[in-house]
């Protein structure tokens, strides 16, 4: 197995980085990671990132929250302690339901929102105490960085490609 080189191409402009990534892609070189201070729109298909499933997760959490609230309605008002409130008995699920709609809605939103945020934090592993992985502190300010893992023999070619696409700095590790 040959040695691997890690190359960082730093750009001042997100459009230049996108051009660079496109160039590497057409030369069949995989961009391992892109670090940027803000989302670069349109970079995902170039570097081969699929769309995120997080909104579908959120939908499932929301359905769970709704089901829990409905279960609660049934349990409290039908199963556990049927109550006649102000002469309006609600001993059946369907008679109890209207008064529970606001709470069911809140529960849906609560679970969907928090569940999604927790999934995001865990999947991206952004949690208190985690050490940042950006290779250069300027990538949270005004620099856009592309990380490429390559074979040693491709190194010079990649460095050239990065420079020609407008990288202001190329570092090899």
């Amino acid at each position, binding site marked *: 197995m040959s040695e691997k080189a890690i190359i960082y191409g730093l750009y001042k402009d997100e459009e230049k980085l996108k051009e660079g990534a496109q160039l590497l892609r057409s030369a069949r070189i995989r961009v391992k990671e892109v670090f940027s201070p803000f989302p670069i729109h349109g970079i995902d298909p170039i570097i081969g990132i699929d769309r995120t499933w997080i909104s579908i997760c959120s939908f499932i959490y929301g359905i769970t929250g709704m089901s829990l609230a409905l279960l609660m309605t049934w349990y409290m008002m039908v199963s556990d302690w049927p109550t006649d409130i102000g002469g309006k008995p609600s001993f059946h699920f369907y008679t109890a339901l209207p008064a529970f709609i606001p709470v069911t809605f809140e529960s849906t*939103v609560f679970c969907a929102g*928090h569940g999604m945020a927790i999934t995001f934090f865990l999947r991206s592993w952004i*949690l208190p105490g985690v050490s940042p992985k*950006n290779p250069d502190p300027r*990538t*949270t300010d*005004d620099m856009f960085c592309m990380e490429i893992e390559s074979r040693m023999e491709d190194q010079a070619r990649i460095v050239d490609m990065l420079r020609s696409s407008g990288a202001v700095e190329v570092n090899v590790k």
Partner: protein
Amino acid sequence: MQHESAIRDPLILGHRTYHDITEDIARPIEGRANKYWYLVFTIAVCAFTWGIGCLCYTLGTGIGAWGANKTVGWAWDITNFVWWIGIGHAGTLISAVLLLFRQKWRMAINRSAEAMTIFAVMCAAIFVTMHTGRPWLDYWLFPHANQFGSLWVNFNSPLLWDVFAVSTYFSISCVFWYTGLIPDFATIRDRAVKPMSKKIYKFLSFGWSGRAKDWTRFEEVSLVLAGLSTPLVFSVHSIVSMDFATSIVPGWHTTIFPPYFVAGAIFSGFAMVETLLLICRKVLSMEQYITVKHMEYMNIVIILTGSMVGVAYLSELFISWYSGVEYEAYAFLNRATGPYWWSYAGMMTCNVISPQLYWFKKIRTSLTATFILSIVVNIGMWFERFVIIVTSLHRDYIPSSWTMYHPTWIEIGIFTGTIGMFFTFFLLFARVFPVIALNELKTILKLSGESYKKEAAAHAAHH
């Protein structure tokens, strides 16, 4: 690349680069506060402390220390609760609804508006938890296993819905706010020189690195949270209005309440955002980011919501007469001409007439006028809640129990205390947190930055 029409006003003035944005927004965090900050902070902390004292007094003596009585059972407490909750709504509205509508001008103001939401909801929570009389038993509001039999809380009551709505709203707002803050904390972390602050911001930024996949998820999370918060914010104030609307008190028992309260909440919230931002942009030198155009946009929202509130007041008045119910008609006659006529007059002037001044471009683009009117609007919205609550209650069905309500110095103290708390927290926020979503703002720099727009226009003219 996206392009923006040349006739649209720029949202970032002068020539700024990505790095300049970071510098400008990190400056208040890294530098020392000026004397105005210390002055305002001292005043706010004094008011806050005074409020804590009054709260402790209430806790020790009970809510008999307040001016509320047998007839006027809800007064200053619920007025302030609704006022603060209403103010909170603009924060969510700015960040969520404007995000869904892809309004780029929200980016300079959403962070502080969200902070305002959280602090305002905290202030509101003080009043609701205290008004129960025995706040240490407030956990009874939640359905939990108990020793009272297996009796559950009354889910048929909007007061209970309120518990669920406000707590969900508060926690979702916190999540929304914090998620947005993470990349900005990372920026501050990577710039930090002092080891202590580096450590703190490293902790706060959760190890954010700005990877492409993280950004994709981040954007999706923001969008979905916005989609969830939008109906949430409408539900919260609708439920707050149902605290009144589902009762049978004349003046409260109206179906118009939910939309009318939501419009009022947005109206007062935007006014509070203006008050805070106008101070912020001066004290923290953010003139290039919080521009006159931003204020003009907000003033336009104020005209719209103010007019909605005005229509609601007038239709309520008309219906009270048209319904033929004499109790209803009297409740409104009493509001306008009874002993509390001045609060009704104050509400009408501040909320219905004053925002109409914004039809004049001169007024809506004048920062001084905006500052004054934003305070006027909030005074008016406070009066609105006072009018609805106190004047509907103080003359009930039996004339022998008619009475007046006078606030005690303790209630006034608690209210002053919450204003103090609000400003204390906001001022601390402005020193420790990035007050503008700086990384999000960078995404519109080349689109809406003044110098880039000029360049693009020159380029277009050349061809």
